[in-house]
């Protein structure tokens, strides 16, 4: 099958944006066809053509996502989505405005459909508990249309903490990380509040970067050093993905800076950075420290962040950071929450939450997120995320893009924020407006590079033909709310609100070798730690394969 996309403006952040034809030959992109024949042609004047969107931090699978669903059945408001309505039911205005999700954490079928409806083709679950990895993969397998991958949650697993406390050689830690990654079929390593989740199980309610875990007598700094070293040694494509200490705590910019110092110049990705950018000045003991972090990211090329931008409204927060989720339990709206201590590996906290414009810290958080976007110069190192569903549902992306592309639109909302935020925030002074090219970089090329997906994120020859066509529109929110067409592996799967075909899916897995000595070691120590054999949790590749599903390997 050869498809010719005629006369669209091709934007990918690699080549100069230009109006040109693009060929999708089977599942591969080419700028020139070897012969003039094409099986299908689409005239795309007044359209832009881009690669499929990639969300590198969105909670779409695994235990904590499912218990959030379980906790909040009353928040489900099912209506037919716009694409499911008949043509006569749609009005022009309604069509352009993106419909809300049926709940803060919808089911997998809806998640896959709604991502594709915005032009996203790959999403990554950033917190896969090892014991729960098979569950996370099963959920992601049931999320249609999307390629998926998982970041393995390490840094609170008692086996690792014990080994670090005993001072085992770094090579042993490297082998352990490699074994864990492959056994759980993940593509990156995530650390949440290094050591803090485990410390909370020992009733420790606070753990700073250089503070000792009460039981293991090691610090988060040691854990970060060890894991970042392992990630580099194993040549994992994605740097250590870190949720810093002191989530949401006033003054946590100090621990965020200490976290950066801890990895000693190795590559580091700071996730949902807006929650880790607080100073202590300001009218209510909280102020923005976004400039401090942005300056650091601008100065050090080993750093990248995703923002986790918050939007006002009801959502549910779910995090492995039990320590800080528990500390915030009284802020839950509605007032109920779930906390889990899980399998000597980590934990999770689920709190429903309502972000309000009239609340100082919430307004400040909104401004901090945008400050980070606007202050960080390189769009290939700052990624568009809402940390779905923590900051907002992923369906907020078109709105967020509008905020970044229009100063006036940004200010129209800024003027409605808590008065103290308006008075103290520097957001109004940031006049930068993102270009279309920059938006495409931060939602496609940047995450593809950050994850080592060399065949995705651009329209380069030989790239995977996951291609999205948007109709040009004055209002970027309307434009990005709904593509004209989406191609997956060269097949037209979505057009004008209609889903036309199913699509095959890939699970992205890091290509690392397992050391046989570690296999032997874990066969011995795993049953002592967990009460079952390491074979029980090991996911075989066959389990991830089916007619519609394959595995892709990444490495640096």
């Amino acid at each position: 099958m050869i498809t010719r996309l005629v006369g669209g403006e091709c934007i990918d952040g690699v080549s100069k944006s230009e109006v040109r034809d693009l060929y999708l030959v089977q599942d591969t992109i080419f700028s020139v066809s070897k012969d003039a024949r094409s099986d299908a042609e689409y005239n795309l004047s007044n359209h832009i053509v881009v690669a499929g969107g990639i969300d590198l931090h969105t909670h779409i699978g695994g235990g904590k996502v499912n218990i959030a669903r379980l906790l909040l059945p009353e928040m489900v408001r099912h209506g037919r989505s716009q694409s499911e309505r008949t043509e006569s039911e749609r009005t022009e205005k309604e069509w352009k405005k993106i419909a809300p999700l049926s709940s803060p954490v919808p089911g997998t079928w809806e998640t896959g459909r709604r991502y594709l409806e915005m032009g996203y083709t790959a999403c990554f679950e950033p917190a896969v508990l090892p014991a729960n990895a098979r569950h996370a993969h099963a959920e992601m397998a049931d999320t249609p249309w999307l390629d998926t991958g998982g970041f393995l949650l390490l840094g609170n697993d008692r086996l690792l903490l014990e080994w670090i406390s005993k001072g085992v050689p770094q090579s042993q830690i490297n082998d352990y990380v490699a074994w864990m990654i492959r056994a759980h079929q993940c593509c990156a390593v995530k650390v949440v509040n290094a050591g803090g989740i485990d410390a909370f199980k020992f009733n420790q309610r606070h753990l700073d970067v250089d503070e000792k875990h009460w039981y293991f007598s090691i610090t988060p700094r040691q854990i970060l050093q060890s894991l970042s070293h392992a990630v580099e040694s194993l040549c994992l494509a994605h740097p250590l993905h870190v949720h810093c200490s002191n989530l949401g705590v006033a003054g946590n910019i100090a621990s965020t800076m200490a976290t950066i110092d801890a990895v000693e110049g190795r590559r580091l990705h700071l996730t949902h950075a807006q929650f880790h950018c607080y100073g202590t000045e300001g009218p209510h003991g909280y102020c923005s420290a976004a400039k401090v972090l942005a300056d650091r990211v601008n100065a050090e090329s080993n750093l990248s962040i995703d923002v986790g931008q918050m939007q006002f409204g009801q959502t549910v927060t779910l995090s492995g950071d039990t320590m800080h989720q528990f500390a915030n339990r009284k802020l839950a709206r509605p007032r109920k929450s779930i906390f889990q201590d899980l399998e000597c590996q980590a934990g999770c906290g689920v709190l429903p939450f309502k972000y309000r414009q009239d609340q100082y810290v919430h307004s400040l958080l909104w401004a901090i997120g945008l400050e980070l976007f606007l202050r960080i110069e390189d769009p290939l190192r700052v990624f568009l995320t809402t940390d779905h569903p923590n900051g907002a549902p992923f369906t907020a992306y078109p709105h967020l893009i509008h905020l970044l592309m229009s100063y006036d639109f940004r200010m129209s909302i800024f003027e409605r924020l808590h008065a103290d935020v308006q008075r103290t925030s520097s957001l109004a002074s940031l006049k930068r407006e993102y270009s279309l090219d920059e938006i495409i970089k931060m939602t496609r090329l940047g995450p593809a590079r950050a994850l080592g997906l060399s065949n995705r994120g651009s329209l380069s020859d030989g790239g995977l033909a996951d291609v999205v066509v948007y109709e040009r529109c004055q209002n970027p929110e309307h434009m990005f709310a709904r593509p004209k067409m989406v191609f997956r592996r060269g097949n037209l799967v979505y057009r004008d609100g209609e889903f036309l075909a199913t699509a095959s899916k890939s699970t992205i897995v890091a290509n690392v070798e397992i050391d046989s000595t570690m296999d032997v070691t874990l066969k011995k120590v795993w049953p002592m730690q967990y009460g079952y054999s390491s074979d029980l949790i090991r996911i075989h590749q066959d389990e991830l394969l089916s007619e519609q599903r394959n595995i892709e390997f990444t490495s640096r």
Partner: protein
Amino acid sequence: MICPFCSLLCDATDLNEIDCGLRNKSLNQLAKFRSQLDPSFNESVLDPEMELAASIELLGIAKRVLITGRIASVQTARAAVALAMKLNGTIDCAEAGHIFKNVQAIQRAGINSVSLAEARDHADLLIVIGDDSLFDACPRIPHALHGQNMSRKTVLLLGGFTDKSMKAWQAAGFQPWSISCKLESVPSALLQWSNAMAQSSQDRMTSELFTALENAKYTAVLWSAASLFVEQADLWVERLLEWIASQNETKRCAALPWTSLDGTFQQVCTWLTGFPGRIRFQDGIPSFDTYAHSYENWLAASRDLDSDSVVIAIDETVATEPFRAKMKFGLDRKFYAIELTAGSVRFPTAVAGAEVAADIFRADQTLLAHLTPSHECDESRVRPAAYWLARLAP
């Protein structure tokens, strides 16, 4: 190898070395199933393809469809939910009544919980609530909780446990402490024992219990909803969860609610639809109602099972208790477990994990295991339930 016969999912190099009454009983049951595969067995389905065609026709004209049963695997749960959606049907698993005791309480109050390996490794006080039926359903729970730090682990059995349960804990290396009391009174008793007033109580036992609770650094509270025979069990669970939450203000305490194999269905249904079961589809959209969409209520409203109403009953376990309902379709191999109406159809299905590969959640809903069968079944005569469900789809 992983044992598929209860939600503990015991793991051993040689499962035959495990001393477990339930496993032995289940293996006998499995052998009985295998004998039914004999072509001479007169109740076997003779021509499944013909039956299938007729069934699809019947489902095509049905106005009300219920899918229920003992669904143990991710694979079958997926297929069952997908079929319910296609047929605009209702779906609710047979053990939902137990599961929803916990679910309803959690949906109102939330929960502080702990997984099995965490409790095994970290808890220094295990409070186990219920009666002997807890261990009848999962005999090796005490062994599963035998961890590395046994010297500092206290086990407190509360409720109607007899010597049988005491011995089970002792056999696993614990020195349990048992207090016989009415299950109804357990949440209030815990509240009383953890109250400072108890410290100076003249009652020695109350004073000792206060000390045990006070000294515990991490308490895990285990119960099985299936063994929870109290009035308004969801409120009972809610009160227990409130006590656990209160403990966490100053120390650590967490629940370990034990679920049966049907917990797998609850998980899958939740991730596919957003709801843990008891849903009815209309135009592809699920609605959730813990009462209206329970299978008992559905059956009560369709007592005569006329031609407009069809029940698809699935059983991929070796459980022996019959469904107390008349069913139109049976996807199982227990010629006594599902009572079929006249003219109904039965498709022989494999036992999940024992005869066909299956993904099954452990009782704490944290670990999802992949079970490969030790006894391959004859696929020409017995297929996975998911196969039939997929074939029944319009």
